[in-house]
C-alpha cells in the first residue's frame, strides 16, 4: 500500500485521478480543474515569470521585464537567428512605444516598426533610432526616414494647423509621385523656380526622313507640365510631297483631333504640318523644293486636356 487507493493526489507528486478540481467547478464558468492529460482550466492566473506556448521549436514567449513587456515568436525555421517580437515599452516618462519586429530568417536583421506616443521633452525633431518609425506627436517638426517607407493601399493625411505648414524634403532623389497630384489651393513657386517638364523623346522617322544634323537640334517630342505636347528640331528627307509622314510620336501625347501648323523650310519656303490624333506628323501643301522642315513653335493640347 502506498496511500489511499483512490487518492486526491497520488504518491511521488503524480496525479492518478483523471482530474482534480475545485468545489463547484463548471467549465467556462467557475472554479478550476487540472486533468491528468495535461489540460487545465483556471479562472484568473498570475504568472510572475514567463509564459511559453507551443513545442520546443515553434513557440511563443510572453514575458515582462525591466526593458518592457513583450511577446516573442519563434517560428522554428532553421535559418531563424532572432525571434519576431511585439514589445510595449515606456522608454522615457510620458512616452510609450509599440515595437513590431519580424524575425531574421537569414537575410539580415530587418528593421523594426516602432510607434511612439507622448511628448519628446528634449527634442522637437524626430530623433528616432529605428528607420521605420511613426511618431504621433504634435510637437515634432520633422520626421526622417533613412530607408524606403511604403504604405500599400493606404492613405496618409497630413494636417498642419501652424503657420509653417507641411514641409516635405525629398533629398537628392526628390519627391516622387506615381499618380495624379491635386492641389485644390493652387501651387505657389518661389521666384526663379518653375514646374519642370519631362525629358525629350526621340520620334520614329518616316521613310526617307531623319535629323538634319550639322549642329541643329535633332527632332524630338516633348510632354509639357501643362498637359500640352510639342515638337522641336529640324528634320530633312525625301519625298517632300503632300501626305508624306515625316515622323511619329506616341499616340498618348497626340491631340484629340488633328492640328495644322505652318513650318518654315529651306530658302524661305513653307509647309503646313498636320499633327494627327494618331501621333503622325504629315506634310501638307508643301512648297516645291523643300529639303528640310523646322519643327519649332509647334505644340498642342494632348488628348484629355
Amino acid at each position, binding site marked *: *500500500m*502506498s496511500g489511499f487507493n483512490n487518492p486526491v493526489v497520488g504518491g511521488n507528486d503524480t496525479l492518478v485521478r483523471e482530474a482534480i478540481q475545485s468545489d463547484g467547478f463548471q467549465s467556462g464558468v467557475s472554479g478550476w480543474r487540472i486533468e491528468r492529460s495535461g489540460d487545465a482550466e483556471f479562472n484568473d492566473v498570475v504568472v510572475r515569470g514567463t509564459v511559453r506556448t507551443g513545442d520546443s521549436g515553434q513557440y511563443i514567449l510572453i514575458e515582462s521585464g525591466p526593458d518592457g513587456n513583450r511577446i516573442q515568436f519563434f517560428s522554428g525555421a532553421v535559418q531563424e537567428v532572432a525571434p519576431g517580437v511585439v514589445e510595449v515599452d515606456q522608454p522615457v516618462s510620458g512616452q510609450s512605444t509599440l515595437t513590431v519586429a519580424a524575425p531574421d530568417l537569414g537575410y539580415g536583421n530587418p528593421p523594426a516598426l516602432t510607434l511612439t506616443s507622448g511628448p519628446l521633452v528634449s527634442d522637437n525633431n524626430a530623433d528616432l533610432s529605428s528607420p521605420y518609425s511613426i511618431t504621433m506627436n504634435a510637437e515634432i517638426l520633422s520626421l526622417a526616414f533613412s530607408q524606403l517607407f511604403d504604405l500599400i493601399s493606404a492613405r496618409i493625411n497630413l494636417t498642419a494647423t501652424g503657420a509653417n505648414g507641411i514641409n516635405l524634403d525629398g533629398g537628392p532623389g526628390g519627391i516622387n509621385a506615381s499618380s495624379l497630384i491635386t492641389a485644390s489651393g493652387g501651387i505657389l513657386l518661389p521666384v526663379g523656380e518653375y514646374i519642370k517638364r519631362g525629358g525629350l523623346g526621340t520620334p520614329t522617322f518616316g521613310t526617307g526622313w531623319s535629323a538634319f544634323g550639322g549642329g541643329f537640334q535633332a527632332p524630338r517630342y516633348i510632354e509639357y507640365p501643362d498637359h500640352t505636347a510639342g515638337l522641336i528640331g529640324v528634320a530633312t528627307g525625301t519625298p517632300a510631297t503632300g501626305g508624306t509622314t515625316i515622323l511619329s510620336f506616341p499616340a498618348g501625347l497626340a491631340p484629340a483631333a488633328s492640328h495644322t501648323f505652318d513650318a518654315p523650310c529651306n530658302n524661305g519656303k513653307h509647309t503646313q504640318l498636320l499633327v494627327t490624333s494618331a501621333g503622325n506628323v504629315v506634310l501638307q501643301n508643301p512648297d516645291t523644293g523643300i529639303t528640310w522642315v523646322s519643327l519649332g513653335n509647334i505644340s498642342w493640347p494632348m488628348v484629355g486636356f
Partner: protein
Amino acid sequence: MTQVQLRAVGSGTLDGSGSGTVRVGPLGHGVTWLPKVASIRMAGDPPPTAATCYVYAGVMATDAYFCDATYDVNNDSTDRVSGSELRLGQYVFAVWSGGTPGADVTLIVTGDQEVP
C-alpha cells in the same frame, strides 16, 4: 516499554451537509502510538457528488499534519500515517466533506503502540 498491537476504532455521524470528523488517539500518559494504516468507512451508497476524506496525524486537523486524502469516502485505506508517533493529546483525524448527510462513518487505525 512494551510494544503491543494497535487497533483503534472511532465512529461518528455526518451532519446535514455531509461533513464530519472522527478522531482516535492515545488515552493514557506514557502511551505512544505508532500507526501504520488508517482505514475510513462510510455506510450507505456513495454520494452523488465528489466527496473527500482527509486524514491528519497530530495535534489538530490542519495542513501541517496532513497525511493523505481520498475520493473514495466509503471505503479506503492509507499507510501514509506511518512514521507518526502520537502521544496523549495527539490524534489521527479523518475529516469527511461532501458525504451522505447523516451517514455513519468510521475510522480504524492499526499499527503498534508502546505502553509503560
